[in-house]
């Protein structure tokens, strides 16, 4: 059976100058493979979390990166044996080899979904577990610290990065809500999808 665990709950705090931010990182285990999603940029937290799971960086088979922002990807390179699934023209990286991937390359219980909007190249995961379908949303949905975490599909994107497209973002949010029972946001707490939101 496929399982998913939040290793680090992502955070994002706007400072006077800049941000204090790192992404939500999850560990997925499926078909004997170990997958890390969005390793983020907080080295201490990530290493502590791996240690708690009794894992070494070399135990990870795949790293999934939802998109290219540094607060999601800077630590990707510490997983020395991993293959990398990315946004980047949807190529899988294996050392210096780049190949196209199928949406079920991570396993039959895990679907890779295109979710543009926050940036043009953005991917999410839908993981089929015994608890239901759990979406690893990346920054399709995310909150800043202190904000009330109530879903509003029209909510503006806090970063307003280049390449942000509100229309695409709303479509991607709708897509995840229609498919998932639970959503793990890029920064913030996991939440349950209420049926009434899916209309």
């Amino acid at each position, binding site marked *: 059976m496929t399982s998913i665990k939040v290793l680090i709950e992502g955070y994002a705090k706007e400072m006077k100058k800049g941000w204090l931010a790192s992404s939500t990182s999850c560990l997925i285990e499926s078909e004997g493979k170990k997958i890390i999603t969005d390793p983020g*940029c907080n080295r201490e937290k990530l290493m502590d979390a791996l240690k708690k799971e009794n894992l070494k960086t070399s135990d990870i088979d795949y790293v999934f990166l939802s998109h290219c922002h540094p607060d999601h990807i800077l630590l*990707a390179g510490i997983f020395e044996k991993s293959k990398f699934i990315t946004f980047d023209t949807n190529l899988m*990286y294996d050392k210096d080899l780049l190949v196209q991937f199928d949406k079920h390359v991570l396993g039959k219980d895990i679907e890779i979904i295109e979710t543009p909007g926050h940036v043009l190249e953005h991917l999410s995961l839908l993981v089929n577990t015994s608890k239901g379908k759990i979406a690893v949303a990346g920054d399709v949905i995310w909150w800043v610290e202190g904000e009330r975490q109530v879903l509003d599909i029209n909510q503006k994107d806090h970063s307003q990065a280049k390449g942000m497209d509100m229309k695409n973002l709303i479509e991607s949010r709708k897509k995840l809500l229609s498919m998932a029972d639970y959503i793990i946001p890029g920064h913030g707490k996991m939440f349950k999808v209420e049926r009434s939101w899916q209309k």
Partner: protein
Amino acid sequence: MAEVKILVQGYAKSSKEYELASSSSVLIKEGSLNIVIDPGMNKVLLLKALKKENLSPEKIDYIILTHTHLDHSMLTGMFNKALVLDDTSIYSFDGKNSSHEGKVPGTSIKIIKTPGHDPFHCSVLIRTKKYGTIAIAGDVFWWPDSDENKVKKDPKFLIALKDPYMKDKKQLIESRKKILKIADWIIPGHGKIFKVEK
């Protein structure tokens, strides 16, 4: 004065099923600081090249990413003591980031915005005694290995280079013109360093 060394010459080979690529990785030494631009994703080549310079990853103070495509940025996490710079910001591995002023702090190394291949693309400029201004251009200029001998180094040809992955053609052309004007030598993202014909 700064010293510039190409650690790995960027390459890009392709067949029908796959591509094989890693970016040009460049070391700049200025004063007591060591800066690596685009660590790429070939760990074996990068570590070997650093060793030749008597360096290990923890001796690197700054990493500059011309952009975050993984063939340029993948190995960033290996440099556990480094701060990371992109087109606008400087990041540390405790999750902090703030904006920079177009320079690597404490050095003469300039970071200029060069969008087009990617909207967040930047290039690095450094003045040296021997070669004048060197631009580490990332994928503002790049070509597959098979084209190495076909690429003419005159500005007209270089401005018109095809880039199948570009996001904005107009911006890319502007960025190319900007670099050709400033630089005496250019290190492309994938391909051999070349002198700019003025």
